[in-house]
């Protein structure tokens, strides 16, 4: 009898649990179809806290709800390509321009309203007007202040391939933030020298090949490695998380115009397949408005606001005083040439 009861109980339990999820799903499905006109879906490649702050302010201002789906921007871009016309995404928001350029190239993005484009300097927008810049990010060197003095710092990203830095530098070849630097170097010195530079950089890694910029800034700060290539805001975020007294590192720019000294753009676009074009365009307009840009300037994002005349308030060098390499959004493209070079250097 006991054996039999156990068998019945087991099968019933499994069936109940398996059907539980069906109930669970139908509940959330009905909830979603409620106010269709007032809800948009955002595919988000930006850091989630930044996005959450922006979405909350947007909903408060317009009453339009936003459902957020977060993942790496490149995975999301491929998911949108795979979804095609059936995509549930209304807006795609990314950390860097190549993921948007990829969708733009596939003809999946709708034109952005002219007034929205006009609130951001034209150099930060899509060359074809189908996505808009939201914030800017600057590539820099982060160095451990106990190990290195400012006088010892390299003035060019090209110097990082010098054997004297062997075992002392780090960078994340798999990060979407590194690709633009490779594109920029290749544009400046040609493919041949870029390959030699990448190989020198790879040799200098000597075991310090970390997966992402968060790890790089933490490892430089803790003294595991002396110096790394990152974007500025990673350092500011670590400082916000650890507190100023725990910082044993500082940021330094390369020389003006150096190919490693880049201003990259984080942007957003509306999907052509979106069934909520009006609400989606409103979201883009909000991102670039004074209200949206102020959220960006005062949140823990630490990226540069670029629209509607709002400026950063956290003591960073003002954006207009920076002297980056003369790279345009169009020069960066979808970054596939950089990827090929990284593959040839066996870094990918």
């Amino acid at each position, binding site marked *: 009898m006991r054996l039999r009861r156990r068998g019945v109980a087991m099968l019933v339990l*499994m069936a109940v649990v398996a059907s539980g999820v069906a109930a669970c799903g139908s509940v*959330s499905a009905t909830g979603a179809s409620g106010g269709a006109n007032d809800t948009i879906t955002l595919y988000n490649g930006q850091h989630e*806290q930044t996005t959450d702050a922006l979405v909350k302010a947007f909903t408060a201002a317009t009453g339009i709800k936003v459902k957020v789906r977060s993942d790496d921007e490149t*995975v999301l871009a*491929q998911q949108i390509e*795979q979804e095609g016309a059936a995509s549930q995404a209304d807006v795609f928001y990314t950390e860097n321009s190549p993921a948007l350029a990829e969708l733009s190239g596939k003809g999946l993005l709708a034109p952005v309203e002219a007034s929205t484009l006009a609130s951001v300097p034209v150099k930060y927008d899509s060359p074809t007007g189908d996505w808009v810049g939201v914030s800017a990010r600057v590539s820099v060197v982060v160095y451990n202040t106990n190990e290195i003095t400012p006088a010892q710092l390299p003035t060019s990203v090209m110097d990082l391939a010098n054997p004297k830095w062997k075992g002392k530098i780090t960078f994340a070849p798999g990060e*979407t933030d590194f690709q633009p630097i490779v594109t920029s170097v290749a544009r400046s010195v040609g493919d041949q020298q870029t390959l030699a530079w990448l190989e020198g950089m790879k040799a200098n890694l000597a075991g310090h090949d970390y997966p992402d910029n*968060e790890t790089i800034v933490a490892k430089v700060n803790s003294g595991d490695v002396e110096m790394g290539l990152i974007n500025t805001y*990673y350092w500011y975020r670590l400082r916000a998380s650890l507190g100023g007294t725990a910082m044993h590192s500082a940021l330094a720019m390369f020389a003006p115009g150096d190919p490693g000294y880049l201003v990259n753009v984080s942007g957003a676009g509306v999907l052509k397949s979106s069934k909520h074009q009006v609400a989606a365009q409103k979201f883009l307009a909000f991102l670039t408005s004074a209200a949206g840009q102020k959220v960006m300037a005062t949140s823990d994002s630490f990226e540069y606001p670029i629209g509607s005349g709002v400026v950063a308030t956290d003591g960073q060098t003002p954006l207009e005083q920076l002297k980056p390499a003369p790279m345009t959004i169009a020069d960066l493209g979808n970054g596939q040439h950089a990827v090929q070079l990284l593959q040839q250097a066996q870094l990918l």
Partner: protein
Amino acid sequence: MTLVPTDDAAIAGTATDDAARNADAVRRRTSRPTPVLAALSTAVAALVLLPLVFLVLQARQAGWDEVRALLFRHLTLVLLRNTIELAVLVTTACVLIGVTAAWLVERTNLPGRRAWAVLLVLPFAVPDFVTGYAWSSIFPAVHGLWGATLVMTLGLYPLVYLPVAAALRGTDPAPEEVARSLGRGRIHTFVRVTVPMLRPALLGGGLVVCLTLFAEYGAFEILRFQTFTTTIFAEFQVGFNGPAASALSLALVALGLMVLATEGLLAGRGRGRFATGSRQAARVPHRHRLERWTAPALGGLVGLVALALGMPAAALSYWMVQSHATTLPGGSMLGAAAHTAVYSASAGALATILALPVALYTVRRDSRAAAVLQRTTLVVQALPGLIIALAAVFYAIHYAPWIYQTPQLLVIAYAILFYPLAFVAVRASVAQAPHRLEEVARSLGHRPASVLVRVTVPLVAPGLAAAFCLVFLTTVTELTATLVLVPTGVHTLATQFWAYQNDASYGAAAPYAVALVAIAAVPSYLIGRWFDRLPSRQGG
């Protein structure tokens, strides 16, 4: 549950006639499963193998030239060597640790066996990205091949421990007692009698460890160890090159098939010796007295658990204490935990239900077709979660758009992703369950459905429980497929951990990791307790 009515209907015609029924019983003695079982297991296999079809379609889209350029270069050799070296080292270490630990807990008078039965399973509940981060942040020297071997062994040995412990519970102690009474020593008895009885559990566990390593990503990324899978992810991360990444996954499939063929050869050699090793007379096995070995045995297990659980615990505590970030929304944590629990329990149940017919079919039917069916479904374990998720996106968008981004699709993808874990656990139990009992039940006039519920399921219950728990534990910590398939706007513990860690908010991320481990600990505890009570139940 669909099994029941279909099976019933299939034999309804014969069930009315006594003579036919007896003839049927005679036929069954030659171990021939019903056509319904064959059809069911073929359907399950087809479902599980859908991702492979997707890979081939993607590789064709990428074009042969591109696939060749990516596969035939120096890096591939490095990746191949890394992957194989790691697989050999980790699988060997996991088998040694898993068998020793299972034997100590199940067959000796080790103090605190109930606690150990739970503690030894728990490391599997710690997410790979947490373990990897813990080691690399506390001991930066832990990286590369040896670092990866250490971290993966500590995380994966429960995959060997669990089925072997279940098998030790289920095996008849009689052959061992006979060997001992004939004057064989303990070690000789263990190697010549116990290990062969454990063969299905041992090979299954080792196999799954090896295949899981092929698909591993999170830990290797942090430990700076390049394998095929880390490169596949890199293709996605920066390359926008889904087709090329998919083509590289075909290399993983090939590696997986080679491992499966090896396991097939090893399993084939031992087949039949204890195939009918009976449990019907199972008694509480005699427990070896450890005596002066008690202290070293306890010391070894304490060291193992300290490394496997202590390191992640230390890193998580450090994050919580060190960080100033206190952006912890309590409500969202409960919601995330509920989603994680429901999705994981559903995935565990579905994977187990899928595995049962295939296990029954392949174990009972000693044919080439059954063997091929079984081998190929297991190869899915070698595929990264991201690939399975993209396959699910592909099929849903093209053939079933109504299921896209629903919890149902996520659970189905989980069940496919972790089906091999469920299958191996169920198969080990089915292999030990005496088929004769089912034949007796049939000859006494029970219909197949009734036999299934009254005889088969109770006999293989330990395997079903182990399968459910294994899949549950793994699903709780799954991240990459979850991010792609989770319904928009829904958070699980793993996706929340990822979001905070991505923001360098380790202090805010840590509580989610703690909650992950806490949820995964529930089935570990239950399975430990349940096994513990098993023999006395059977006696009564």
